């Protein structure tokens, strides 16, 4: 009985804090994405010849995120049946976008306005071990230049 109460408390804590923080985070992501819109992202290795580019330095952005108890619980149920792990999707979406924003901020500090050859790396910190907090690192990097078009 006490286990069940403890579980309910953990689930509601996870749900309410998780939802609140996620909403807040998305708000901030959308705001900063607008602010940093002028910094352009390219996945090509080479700078198109028509651009006049100068400078060039590596810029990085990385984020470590952890799942909340509620999301983890729902994913645990989902794993028994299979299907989209929806609760993880929003978490990773936030992590990737936040990492890109941090990389863009890095580029802005370096007075660059375009980033080429962007690559993402992901590392699971918990490695799926039982009873540990599921957390993941998203790392994004690229070459920033100042270019005029």
């Amino acid at each position, binding site marked *: 009985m006490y*286990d*069940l109460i403890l*579980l309910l408390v953990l689930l509601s804590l996870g*749900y309410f804090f998780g*939802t609140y923080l996620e909403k807040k985070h998305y708000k901030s992501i*959308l705001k900063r*994405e607008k602010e940093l*819109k002028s910094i*352009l*992202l*390219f996945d090509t290795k080479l700078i*198109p010849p*028509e*651009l006049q580019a100068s400078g060039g330095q590596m810029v990085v952005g990385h984020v470590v995120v952890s799942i909340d108890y*509620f*999301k*983890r*619980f*729902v*994913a*645990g*149920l*989902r*794993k*028994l*049946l299979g299907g*989209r792990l*929806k*609760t993880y*999707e*929003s978490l990773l*979406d936030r992590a990737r976008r936040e990492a890109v924003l941090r990389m863009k901020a890095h580029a802005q500090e370096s007075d660059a306005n*375009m980033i080429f050859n962007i690559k993402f790396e992901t590392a699971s910190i918990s490695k*799926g071990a*039982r009873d540990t907090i599921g957390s993941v690192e998203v790392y994004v990097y690229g070459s920033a230049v100042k270019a005029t*078009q």
Partner: protein
Amino acid sequence: MRFENPEIEDGINVSKEHPLKEFSQLLIGLLVIIVVAVLVLSYSVGYFAQKIPFSYEEKLVSHIDALNVEESAQQKKLQALADRLSAKMDLPEGMKITVHYSNDATVNAFATMGGHVFFFKGLIEKLPSENALAMVMAHEIAHIKHRHPVVAMGKGVTMLTLASFVTGASGSGAGELLINESMTLGLMKFSRDQESQSDLTAVHALNAVYGNVQGAKELFDVFSELSDGAKKANKTTANEYEIFLSHPRTENRWEKLRDYSQQRGWNLKGETTALDFRF
């Protein structure tokens, strides 16, 4: 040519569905599936476990030291009573009842694998007559006759396997919660059904040996007193008397047996034999 990064529409990578919807759908759906699995498995295991020859069951527990009989005057007396009752209980061929006596104050008696029945001093002390003792004895023998110990073990092993599968597959507390709740729902009734079945078989034996079922009435009167006393003393019944843990409610048990006996025209009251038991 002018380069730009277009704004990506929101909601492509993230589902707009409310997370509580998925949560409740999954929880209820899985709970139903697992409860059904527990019930199906437990009934089929119960069916097949009964087919295990009794001699296998005996062999399985033969190396357990705690099941060696410690002979004493009390043990011999209990064994004689068990033999008298089992002669009237139509036991399957080769099924042997072995009675053990313990000097412990625990108020309990139980039957286990291999036809072994345990009696505690604590319970016998509280009984008013040999008839009441015979009712307990016949009840425990009935458990063995119906193969309840081996069925319970079969179910236990199966449920543990199912539990480790579900917990492993889910890899989180979610699986554990599901399996625990389903097992409680699925197995509680099983234990109570076994008790009722044994009560009925026992009352048959009691009537066959003594010509009345007064012993059953006396036994349940004792149980009622014990449980009332415990309530008055503000103790939880279950903690003080193990016997109440897994059994249906005392009043219901006697009412059921009284009706059952009346339908068959048995004597509810009659001469009882004094309990000649020295500790």
